[in-house]
């Protein structure tokens, strides 16, 4: 997939909002500062990915996982991020679990109401949502 230069940038609106919320009320940031922070954030992602990949390569599974990212933050001297990241991870896992249970329950209810033909149809609908091929790479790996 060819990347256009703008694809490696993060959306200005979101970056600006994060900056605004971080700085105290009444503190402005110049457009130049915002754009610089946005570039810095892209570099951060690249650097963190490269570092995390080194950790991943050491293990058996070459897929970059959550613990690789956490180790990377320590490595890059951003230990302060580790606690909030762990909290975010917990919240994400709970959310995913909730979603999974909800959709399983939905399926059970559907199966009760409909016949076998309808069941196949709903399965295809679910698969249709996972359009991108890359989705296959993103299956959760149990840590």
């Amino acid at each position, binding site marked *: 997939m060819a990347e256009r230069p703008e694809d490696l940038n993060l959306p200005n609106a*979101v970056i600006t909002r*994060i*900056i605004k919320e*971080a700085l105290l009320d009444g503190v402005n*940031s110049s457009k130049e*500062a915002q754009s610089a922070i946005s570039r810095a954030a892209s570099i951060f992602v690249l650097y963190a990915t490269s570092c995390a990949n080194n950790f991943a390569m050491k293990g058996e599974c070459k897929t*970059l996982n959550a613990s690789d990212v956490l180790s990377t933050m320590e490595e890059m001297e951003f230990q302060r991020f580790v606690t909030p990241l762990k909290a975010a991870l917990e919240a994400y896992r709970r959310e995913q679990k909730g979603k999974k249970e909800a959709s399983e329950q939905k399926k059970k209810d559907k199966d009760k109401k409909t016949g076998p033909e309808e069941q196949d149809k709903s399965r295809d609908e679910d698969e249709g949502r*996972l359009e991108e091929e890359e989705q296959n790479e993103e299956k959760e790996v149990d840590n």
Partner: protein
Amino acid sequence: MADVVVGKDKCGEQRLVSLPLSRIRVIMKSSPEVSSINQEALVLTAKATELFVQYLATYSYRHGSGKEKKALTYSDLSNTAEESETFQFLADILPKKILASKYLKMLKEKRGEEENNKDESEDDEAES
């Protein structure tokens, strides 16, 4: 896949991450040797990037001269990149700005040096 998750979603709950995961993923995949990325790693990287933006902004503001003007400026950021070890990796993309006149002066001086070196080596050749 949850892409742009800004602010509140349909259910009105606060989203974990504001930055678009699809974009973060593109950047991560552009790194060579990266084969595959687990969804959790993607979410954590996005979250870490947000934390990074907050940290860079607040750190630069606290340590910068923009404080008096109550504004965060580019020079606050480039100072941070130069002076803080943690943010050293940004030094190349956040260079210090200098006046054009200063830069032209530097170029002139550099050219002057090169001319001198050239003359010296020519002299050496002449002697041998």
